[in-house]
């Protein structure tokens, strides 16, 4: 370099180039009175019923805004459709990050999409709270800016297996599942948990999406005589499976996932006798029409009056509550790094919607480590901690 000034100028330029983007990134998506939050979800396509989770989250944001926002800022949700397709999901993520320039991301119902966009989010460094998708690989190994605000597949699978084993005398367990990553995210950890407790599944069956008949599966199960059946099936296929179980006189208890709901399943099969043995993961503090959930139902209907509420509608609210708590902890002088630090400080937060509390530490971003189970007791859906033990 010719002169000292030039050297200084060069040094400043380099410093700016390095620090500039970092500094610019820290407050992207913020104005004095708003925080832009990118909400990705499958608003279209054949998984669009999952996007009820994102609707619930956005209703919560609107409620927070009506109560004054956070430190003078309103939460502005920018929805983007992924259609549950990885390529479209990456396009949605890039649009939110680079075109809409949001402050952070929250949402995502489809694990395939979440796994596909993970690279983008890591590169961009903005905070991302996964509010519905369950795949463990999203948040494990721990990444600085990615937080999991729902029970992951591991937690769910283990909760299912634990419930199954909590029934006295359970030795023979059979598994029925869809051959897709959603089902495997439940059954693989369930299998591992069972094996760790000395139980090997006696039968492993698949049932295709869109199947209208489960005769082959049920007849094989009848031969195998299991004490408990774990079923990782979507709503329609669950109803068909239960119906065929009743048809062929199979009375084994069935453990379902968090993708189905007792009330809805009862509605679909039409009579209690068919579902009386059915149990589902129920990650909430109460039945969906119970007193503790009423305020959330009211909230969603206030801002989305035509919304048909299902068990998906409430799953993302918990992580929304955690976000707001962290934002409030930071206060008006908000940056991305500060938010991440505040999220890392959430400990044992009882959200009033999820059955287990949220805890995030710098080393562990899987925030929710448990799930309750719901089953029919005396004809009424009841939240259970273990077989025969109510949740309280």
């Amino acid at each position, binding site marked *: 370099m010719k002169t000292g000034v030039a050297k200084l100028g060069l040094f400043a330029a380099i410093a700016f180039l390095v620090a500039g983007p970092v500094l610019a990134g820290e407050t992207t998506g913020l104005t004095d009175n708003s925080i832009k939050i990118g909400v990705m979800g499958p608003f279209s396509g054949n998984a669009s019923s999952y996007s009820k989770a994102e609707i619930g989250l956005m209703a919560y944001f609107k409620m927070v805004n009506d109560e004054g926002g956070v430190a003078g800022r309103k939460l502005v949700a920018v929805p983007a459709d992924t259609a549950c397709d990885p390529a479209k999901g990456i396009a949605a993520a*890039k649009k939110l990050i680079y075109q809409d320039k949001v402050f952070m991301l929250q949402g995502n119902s489809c694990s395939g999409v979440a796994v596909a966009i993970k*690279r983008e989010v890591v590169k961009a460094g903005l905070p991302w709270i996964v509010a519905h998708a369950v795949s463990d690989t999203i948040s494990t190994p721990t990444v600085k800016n990615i937080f999991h605000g729902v029970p992951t597949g591991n937690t769910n699978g283990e909760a299912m297996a634990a419930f199954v084993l909590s029934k006295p005398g359970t030795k023979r367990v059979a598994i029925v599942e869809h051959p897709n*990553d959603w089902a495997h995210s439940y059954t693989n950890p369930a299998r591992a948990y069972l094996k760790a407790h000395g139980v090997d599944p006696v039968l492993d069956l698949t049932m295709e999406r869109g199947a209208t008949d489960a005769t082959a599966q049920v007849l094989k199960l009848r031969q195998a005589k299991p004490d408990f059946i774990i079923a990782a099936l979507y709503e329609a296929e669950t109803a068909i499976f239960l119906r065929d179980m009743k048809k062929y006189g199979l009375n084994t208890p069935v453990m379902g996932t968090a993708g189905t709901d007792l009330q809805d399943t009862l509605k679909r099969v039409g009579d209690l006798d068919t579902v009386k043995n059915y149990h589902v993961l129920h990650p909430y503090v109460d039945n969906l029409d119970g007193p503790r959930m009423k305020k959330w139902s009211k909230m969603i209907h206030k801002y989305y009056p035509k919304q048909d509420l299902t068990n998906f509608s409430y799953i993302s609210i918990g992580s929304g509550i955690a976000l707001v708590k962290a934002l409030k902890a930071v206060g008006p002088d908000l940056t991305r790094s500060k938010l991440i630090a505040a999220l890392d400080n959430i400990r044992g937060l009882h959200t009033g919607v999820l059955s287990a509390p949220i805890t995030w530490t710098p080393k562990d971003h899987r925030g929710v480590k448990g799930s309750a189970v719901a089953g029919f007791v005396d004809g009424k859906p009841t939240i259970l901690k273990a077989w025969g033990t109510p949740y309280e």
Partner: protein
Amino acid sequence: MVTSAPTLSRRSRILWLVPLLALAIPAATNAYTQFIVNAMLIYTLATLGFTLVIGSLGQLAFANTAFFGIGAYSATIIGTAFGLPWLLTVPVAGLFGALGGFLASAAALRGIRLYYLAIVTLAFGELMRWLYIHAGVVTGGTDGLPVPLEQDFGLSLTSDNVQFYIFLVITCLLFAGTINLLRSRIGRAIIAVRENELATASLGIPTSRVIIMAFVWSGFVVGIAGSMFALHVGHVFPESFGLTQLIIGFAMVLVGGLGSVAGAALGAIALTALPELLRAFPGMEDIFFGVVVMAVLLALPKGLAGLLGRFSPAFQQRYHRN
């Protein structure tokens, strides 16, 4: 009769201009729009391969998505197994795609025609997808496989701009190759087989060999497009290669113009842009898509390329089906 022009015709000049102008695109885009432009390149190539078989050759072979998937998976599996940089997996994908094309041509050669061929090739595609799901050890099953995106020869492959230039070069090369093929004797034989296979055979042209060549080249091109897709998304999933993608691919061919090389680009660009433009109307895509395709079929039988051809002689397609 088709005469080949020895001097640079107006049409050739336009064909060279487009990629040159395209070099400037990354200056005008952000990461999101560049991502979409890259997708357009990938689908342009895939559509080119598809239109060669269903347009130029006139065989209703619906195996395009199968070739696409074979390309994506073979590139990723072999790249991961042997630690190959992505660029080296591209010809591997082409090779496997070509093999797939060869297999598909076997059906056409047995005298299977029209809808029957369509259904058989469709079944082939779905069988491949079932394999991706159930051959978990090799294909990662339903979780799919991540595509290793390490640096290739000093280039950072995660950059959308870098991907764009690589894709542009590959696409232009394969377009040039396809145009040459169509202009050659083999190309004319392909069209002749489409018009009347028996008559062509009676002229002494080995129709079987022509059919195989068309399928193999198509598989090669689409297989390479598949490897590009794998890089673009960064992860291969079985669901990316199903019936929905087949239908979209086929719509791209028709909207662009059956058998038209320029049409392949036009159709791919139009139908890649459309879903992004429709982001404002979530849930209405199926209806929009169906209506747009039906409208194009009714009003523009020669597709967008035909429309352009009406306005500019430079776009007149010589190999168009009536």
